């Protein structure tokens, strides 16, 4: 089945130690998104890619970076995780201008010690 896959599902890192979260998709969608979701809150968009075009939200901290080496994969890099970055990180995809429905992966739960 076509889907959005996130690895790992659970990630534990130490304060200040860089961490990378991975997202892959078999939907061949043009747009990929990264969201941060803290407990009992709505997902907050960090950035999105339309093909190779990167779009950063104005309030996304510089500590968060992203890479999209090809259509299928997108990575979220947190350069120096702080305790406040502990959250669920959701990856989503959408086809593009003609279809704005977003398909979400299962998420990666990040713990910062």
């Amino acid at each position, binding site marked *: 089945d076509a889907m*959005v896959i*996130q690895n790992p599902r659970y990630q534990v890192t130490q304060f200040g130690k860089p961490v990378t979260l991975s997202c892959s998709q078999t939907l061949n969608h043009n*747009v990929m*998104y990264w969201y941060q979701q803290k407990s*009992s*809150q*709505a*997902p907050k*968009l960090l950035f*999105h890619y*339309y093909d190779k075009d990167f*779009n950063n939200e104005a309030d996304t901290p510089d500590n968060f970076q992203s890479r999209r080496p090809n259509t299928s994969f997108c990575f979220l890099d947190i350069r120096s995780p702080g305790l406040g970055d502990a959250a*669920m990180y*959701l990856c*989503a995809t*959408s086809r593009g201008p003609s279809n*704005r*429905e*977003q*398909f*979400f*992966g*299962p*998420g990666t*739960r990040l713990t910062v010690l």
Partner: protein
Amino acid sequence: AQSVTQPDIHITVSEGASLELRCNYSYGATPYLFWYVQSPGQGLQLLLKYFSGDTLVQGIKGFEAEFKRSQSSFNLRKPSVHWSDAAEYFCACTTSGTYKYIFGTGTRLKVLA
């Protein structure tokens, strides 16, 4: 400013009872509207969507929603709730000029046996 409001943070219903979750949006342009469900520790699953056409839309798991432009609402309904429907429900909105979703703050549903 664009916004999505879910007035009810928590709702508790008995199994077998009917359910209505409220969603109001504030958008200048024609909205695309979505309802997602999120079980604990999981990603978001699309229940239903409205782009245009028939204002009563049917979704998965027996859910439906009605778009009312005059009331700027897109309320989610289910005639008979099952214990497995206990989860968090998010209403989201976007328009043709952006890929960004505006999410409501979510409604947490509890189902009593």
